[in-house]
């Protein structure tokens, strides 16, 4: 393990999507959709599975596992099925590709 650089301030979240997936989960916890103990169990199980095949660095790969855990939970509860999630992801991709640079990106009307 490398000694971290102590002098440079680290951003709280390295990528905007890290912050977004974190906030989504905290919000679902606060609204009672998932208990924190349940979340920790699911998340640590997946971290352990991933950690078997390679060493996680605690940055981007950590939040990848976080996202996978959240997707798994929402699929299991039927809140957002894999089909729905994939369809919506494609819709967002299309919206980005169709929006001129500098314009706000919006989903096409439902």
């Amino acid at each position, binding site marked *: *393990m490398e*000694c*971290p650089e*102590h002098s440079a301030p*680290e951003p*709280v*979240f*390295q*990528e905007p*999507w890290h*912050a*977004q*997936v*974190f*906030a*989504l989960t*905290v*919000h*679902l*916890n*606060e*609204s009672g*959709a998932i208990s*924190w*103990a349940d*979340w*920790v169990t699911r*998340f*640590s199980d997946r*971290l352990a599975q991933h950690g078997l095949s390679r*060493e*996680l*660095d*605690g*940055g981007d790969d*950590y*939040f*990848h596992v976080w*996202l996978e855990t*959240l*997707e798994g939970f*929402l699929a299991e509860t039927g*809140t*957002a099925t894999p089909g*729905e*999630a994939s369809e*919506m*992801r494609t*819709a*967002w*991709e299309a919206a*980005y*590709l*169709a*929006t*001129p*640079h500098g*314009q706000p*990106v919006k*989903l096409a009307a439902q």
Partner: protein
Amino acid sequence: MPHDDPDHPHSLLPPEPALRVKALETILTRKGLVDPAALEEIIDTYQNRIGPKNGAQVVAKAWADPAFRAQLMEDATAAVTALGFYGRQGEHIVAVENTAEQHNLVVCTLCSCYPWPLLGIPPAWYKSDAYRARAVREPRKVLADFGVTLPDGTAVRVWDSTAEVRYLVIPMRPKGTEGLSEEALTALVSRDSMIGTALAAEPAP
């Protein structure tokens, strides 16, 4: 750069996981399970308002105020709640005090449980497999990697956080700080010193 690049006339496509997060957010918002304003509030709180300076205030007060220190060691959750530090991930906080006999080191071997109201979001190294595995197995080597060498007579105790219990290390008060105000003491208390991977800083001469 992208603004004038004819090869990229459309908006820059976010990375793959960002698209997946946006998809979940849209689905949950449309189902009324998520309020986008609440998401922004959560992000703003952790990016801008909660951080190790909260914990540093607690440590400085414990150094300066024996009655508060006693209360903190007895029931840290109540003591820090009284200072206004409570909320998510702070439900049950235990303060562990470093002494000449015992140095305390905090880890979460399961994932990354951490006293959010006092320290904010944990740094990447705290969440890494390397730290989570090695802190328990070879704490002195981990400390050495962080530049901390303890006297031979000081034992290292490792505390493993859980979903229910979070630990705050109270570092030893540095020598030569007798006359300092609580505010000045706060500046000596780093995030890492409250995890146990650093000591409190010596005051500038």
